[in-house]
């Protein structure tokens, strides 16, 4: 694994004039998994000079920047010691070469309940217009952007070099560069980062390892190896539970026993007002003929695991749970179940960001579902602890609001 974890020691840097160098930083910069005092900073570096990263408050100028050393072609630096709930800028520097500028916001501190706003999407296939990502990149009011998987479509890749090429061809595009530089990402994977309908053991180990390495190289998360499930906290407003709905499947379990045990315990222990469940694949029941043929590829095809987590939430009366998923190539808002276990839980489907719409001749609608759309989109989730509601809004590539739902 060529990811280099840099020293987290913070050094004051005076800042010096440098030139932006796309050749040295062909995929721009990114940040991810923000905490109350830092984040993961990332850059693809193609150069031989010593690399460092500068971090400074968004309201100040770069002369006040902190300096951290970085290393490797897929440079990954954990910055700590920052102020909570604060916007920062950063840039990588190698000699006289400087990367494009990135920005992120540290999470609110524990014990506070400010309004938190996420962007979210899924399914961004190279070759389709990335205007939704470009629109999302215009936002400067997001605390983080949730990537629900299928960030790239690497179905045709087999070797590490091929997987890297697939990631690079998407991330070199301006829309992706802008979004990744603009807001900290919280990402999970779905099947197409590996292969279509990837489910754990249906991809050869060597290929799977190459796909995983390419994912970790390109996504600025805190994890650099499996398991990828984790939670990211935003004060007492929200806790984002990042699930691995793909690589730990083993009949009859949809997710591993360890992941299930962690999830149930973490949910029960969470003091956050809202629990955002990032599952790349929907957990809602779509027990209808047009969707039933694909049930084996989602939670619904593994009723034991699905019932276990939904029942835990119901029986423990864990409030503020919102399931967020992608994969379906349609946006949707509705209850997880029409009746029975999960009937009081809600799920929103985000994306597709850039894909062919779902070809089903009928989309989810009442009484279980409130809305659905096949227009490429990104979603805004506004978590307001004062009102006790999550406002979900879907936007198309022109920035037009498609639907608003208070949950």
């Amino acid at each position, binding site marked *: 694994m060529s990811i280099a974890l840099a020293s987290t020691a913070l050094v004051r840097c005076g800042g010096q004039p440098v030139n932006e160098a796309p050749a040295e930083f062909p995929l721009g910069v990114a940040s991810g998994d923000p905490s109350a005092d830092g984040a993961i900073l990332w850059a693809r570096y193609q150069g031989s000079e010593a690399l460092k990263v500068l971090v400074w408050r968004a309201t100040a100028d770069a002369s006040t920047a902190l300096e951290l050393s970085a290393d490797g072609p897929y440079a990954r630096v954990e910055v700590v010691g920052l102020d909570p709930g604060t916007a920062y800028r950063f840039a990588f520097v190698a000699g006289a070469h400087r990367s494009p500028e990135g920005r992120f916001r540290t999470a609110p501190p524990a014990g506070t309940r400010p309004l938190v706003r996420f962007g979210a999407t899924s399914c961004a296939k190279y070759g389709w217009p990335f205007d939704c990502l470009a629109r999302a990149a215009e936002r400067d009011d997001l605390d983080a952007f949730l990537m629900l998987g299928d960030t790239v479509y690497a179905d045709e890749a087999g070797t590490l070099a091929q997987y890297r090429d697939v990631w690079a061809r998407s991330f070199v595009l301006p829309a992706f560069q802008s979004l990744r530089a603009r807001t900290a990402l919280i990402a999970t994977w779905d099947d197409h980062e590996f292969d279509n309908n990837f489910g754990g053991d249906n991809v050869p180990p060597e290929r799977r390892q190459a796909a995983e390495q390419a994912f970790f190289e390109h996504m600025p998360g805190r994890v650099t190896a499996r398991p990828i499930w984790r939670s990211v906290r935003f004060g007492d407003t929200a806790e984002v539970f990042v699930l691995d709905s793909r690589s730990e499947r083993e009949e009859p379990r949809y997710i591993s026993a360890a992941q299930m045990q962690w999830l149930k315990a973490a949910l029960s222990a969470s003091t956050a007002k809202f629990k955002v469940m990032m599952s790349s694949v929907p957990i809602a029941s779509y027990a209808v003929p047009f969707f039933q043929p694909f049930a084996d590829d989602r939670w619904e095809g593994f009723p034991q695991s699905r019932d276990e987590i939904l029942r835990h939430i119901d029986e423990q009366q864990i409030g503020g749970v919102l399931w967020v998923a992608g994969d379906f190539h349609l946006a949707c808002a509705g209850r997880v179940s029409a009746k029975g276990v999960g009937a009081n839980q809600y799920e929103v489907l985000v994306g597709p960001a850039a894909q062919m719409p779902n070809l089903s001749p*009928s989309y989810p609608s009442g009484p279980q579902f409130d809305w659905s759309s096949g227009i490429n989109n990104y979603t805004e989730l506004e978590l307001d602890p004062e009102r006790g509601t999550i406002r979900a809004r879907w936007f198309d590539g022109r920035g037009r609001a498609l639907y608003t739902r208070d949950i």
Partner: protein
Amino acid sequence: MLAIAATALALSLTAGPAASDAGAGLDEAGTAAASAPEPATDASAALGLLSDAGVARSPVERPGALRQTGAHLLFAAGVVASSLLAVGLVYLPARGYFDVVGRPEPLVGTITFVPAGALKIAVSYWLLPELYRAGGGTPDIEATRQTMWRWVRWPALTAALGVVACIVGAALEREAFGRGQLLMAVGFSGVALSHTAFDILSIVASSYGYRH
């Protein structure tokens, strides 16, 4: 258009030998001169939809094998073109609705089967057999038409039933997600299979009618 097609279908399915006689003399313009035309006695005769049994035919001048093959290919191309036209008539309104609203509307996607199916039948019955004239000679177009129709009327009927199933299913689907999907799926399958059978049989039967 639908009313004409439905009437044609119904009359054709019930037509017997006696009715067939009434159709004598309603051959193509090019062959009518050889027989004494009699006035049509009912609507079915006026539509020219009856069996060609008993129809007096003029001598048929056969073109060469190459030109016959060309005529067959032209007819087959016409079948494909009419199918594409029908599919377009179904797809484009549904796609237009989707582009505006962002989701499919089951009723839009199924009601469009009606004009598309009617057009497909009308073109297949009235227009496509005429393409055999391009092969030269004096082909018996009416015999070709009637032979084709005797074969394709059954898939036309099952397609019509499939369309009805689709529309009823779509209406149910609008009431509750999933309620009409099974019926829609059955209807879609019926329409697709019937359409395929219609096209294959129309090519085979018209070829047979043209050659005999």
